[in-house]
């Protein structure tokens, strides 16, 4: 019985979509448009999240510069103590020569400029890699108490600012996404209402003959879900195309200022398809249920 009911609903849904081509197209168009805008915000959120994550990674290191007279043994004792702290992943010693080597590596073909120094100006240092950025204050406090250090470098304000900005962006995008979803449910509900209205007579006859509300709703529900699904596929394809074009044009360099790469298209599209499909189907289903509510009262 149940299976037969679903079969009937699916068959009727296809017939309805075809018979009401104009309506179906209107619904399809509005859901697709919504999903496209939504997709842009989704891409924004994902990229912002990736940027934050990698920025965090860059800022998760505390550098403790040591005075020249501080010997290696003292440094090792400091490292031991820091390593025991909560939120510290790893602490290690970096000699001034190693530090210079690191710089040369970073500067690449301009490394010859560094050869101009008669003497290595860099200090010996301890590096502390944090596993938990929240614990940075405690670690810095601890380091301050050590004797024989010259300076502590930690870009806390930069990290804080970045985190704040990205959380605003994320919140904003989320609010916009949610309102877009609400708007598209309303749009679909109103479009479907026109179809339902056109079939009010048929629905009333169905009720006289003893059709259950779900039997009447079924085809509309499947119709909404189907249109939602097609919209999802359509908008995911469009977004994938646009994203690919952007990557082709600018390359991943576009975001090099954050020294992070844009999220690879394949990963993004894969997730987008899932999210769009779920959203599209839900929007379609809710839209048609809402639009039918009044007709199924008695």
């Amino acid at each position: 019985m149940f299976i037969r009911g679903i079969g009937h609903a699916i068959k009727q849904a296809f017939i309805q979509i075809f018979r009401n081509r104009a309506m179906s197209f209107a619904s399809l168009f509005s859901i697709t448009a919504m999903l496209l805008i939504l997709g842009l915000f989704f891409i924004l959120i994902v990229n912002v999240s990736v940027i934050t994550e990698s920025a965090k990674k860059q800022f998760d290191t505390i550098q403790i510069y040591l005075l020249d007279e501080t010997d290696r043994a003292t440094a090792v004792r400091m490292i031991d103590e820091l390593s025991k702290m909560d939120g510290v992943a790893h602490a290690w010693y970096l000699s001034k020569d190693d530090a210079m080597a690191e710089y040369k590596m970073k500067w690449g073909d301009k490394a010859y400029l560094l050869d101009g120094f008669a003497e290595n100006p860099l200090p010996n240092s301890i590096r502390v890699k944090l596993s938990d950025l929240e614990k940075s204050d405690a670690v810095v406090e601890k380091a301050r108490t050590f004797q024989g250090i010259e300076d502590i470098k930690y870009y806390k304000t930069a990290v804080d600012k970045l985190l704040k900005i990205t959380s605003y962006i994320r919140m904003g995008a989320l609010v916009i996404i949610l309102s877009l979803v609400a708007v598209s449910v309303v749009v679909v509900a109103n479009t479907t209402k026109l179809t339902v209205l056109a079939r009010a007579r048929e629905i009333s006859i169905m009720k006289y003959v003893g059709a259950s509300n779900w039997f009447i709703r079924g085809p509309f529900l499947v119709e909404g879900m189907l249109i939602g699904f097609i919209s999802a596929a359509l908008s995911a394809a469009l977004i994938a195309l646009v994203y690919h074009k952007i990557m082709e044009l600018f390359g991943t360099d576009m975001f090099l200022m954050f020294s992070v790469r844009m999220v690879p298209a394949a990963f993004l599209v894969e997730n987008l398809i899932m999210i769009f499909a779920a959203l599209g189907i839900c929007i379609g289903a809710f839209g048609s249920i809402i639009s039918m509510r009044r007709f199924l009262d008695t």
Partner: protein
Amino acid sequence: MIVFENVTKMYGNNVGIENVSVHIDKGDFVFLVGPSGAGKSTFIKLILKEICEDKGRILVNGMDVTRLSNRQIPKLRRSIGIVFQDFRLLPNKTVEENVAFAMEIIHASRRAIRRNVPQVLNLMGIGSKAKKYPHELSAGEQQRVAIARAVINNPTVLIADEPTGNLDPDTAWDIMQLLDQINRRGTTIVMVTHAKDIVDRMGKRVIAIDKGRIVRDDKAGLYGYYEDEDAHSFFCKPGGVFNNHVY
């Protein structure tokens, strides 16, 4: 079986029906007559639970309609066939689809549908019209399709709201023969009508309502007695599709 026990239905200050008690047995054939606004449609809507009563109790086919939840309404309506004056066929479905539709609703198997639909159409005398659309049929044929749809699921009760109202006298009489045939196979029939000659000729039970009350209930009755002058002038207005049609 239909039982009304002291049923009252008001529309604001308007009386729909008032304190109506009636007992219609299984297999009865009942004409429901009365002037316009008497409460006939209200009576039928209460049976179908299209509207809810204010007072009293209603039993239909053993179900207490008064206590039926919204979810149980389809079950009630499946035990009742209904035929309207304006046929109410789906214009974009063929005759056989219109009838099959009533079976799909109760989730009948495709095999049962393919077996029963032609059978019922033949019984109604429209077997050859199966592939036609409603607008290609005459009024009488359309009403036969509507009756086929109403009876295909073997309802215990068939309700007909002026089923001959749009038909010429000969066609109307043919439809009455069909209803009589259905009744003889055990289906209870309640028919609202203004057709005096049909009521008189059939000689079935007549329940007359006026101003929301049952004013007469005859086992084998006539349409009206004209015992009062008002009613006489009302019923004898000229016009209508029947020569001796009184309304």
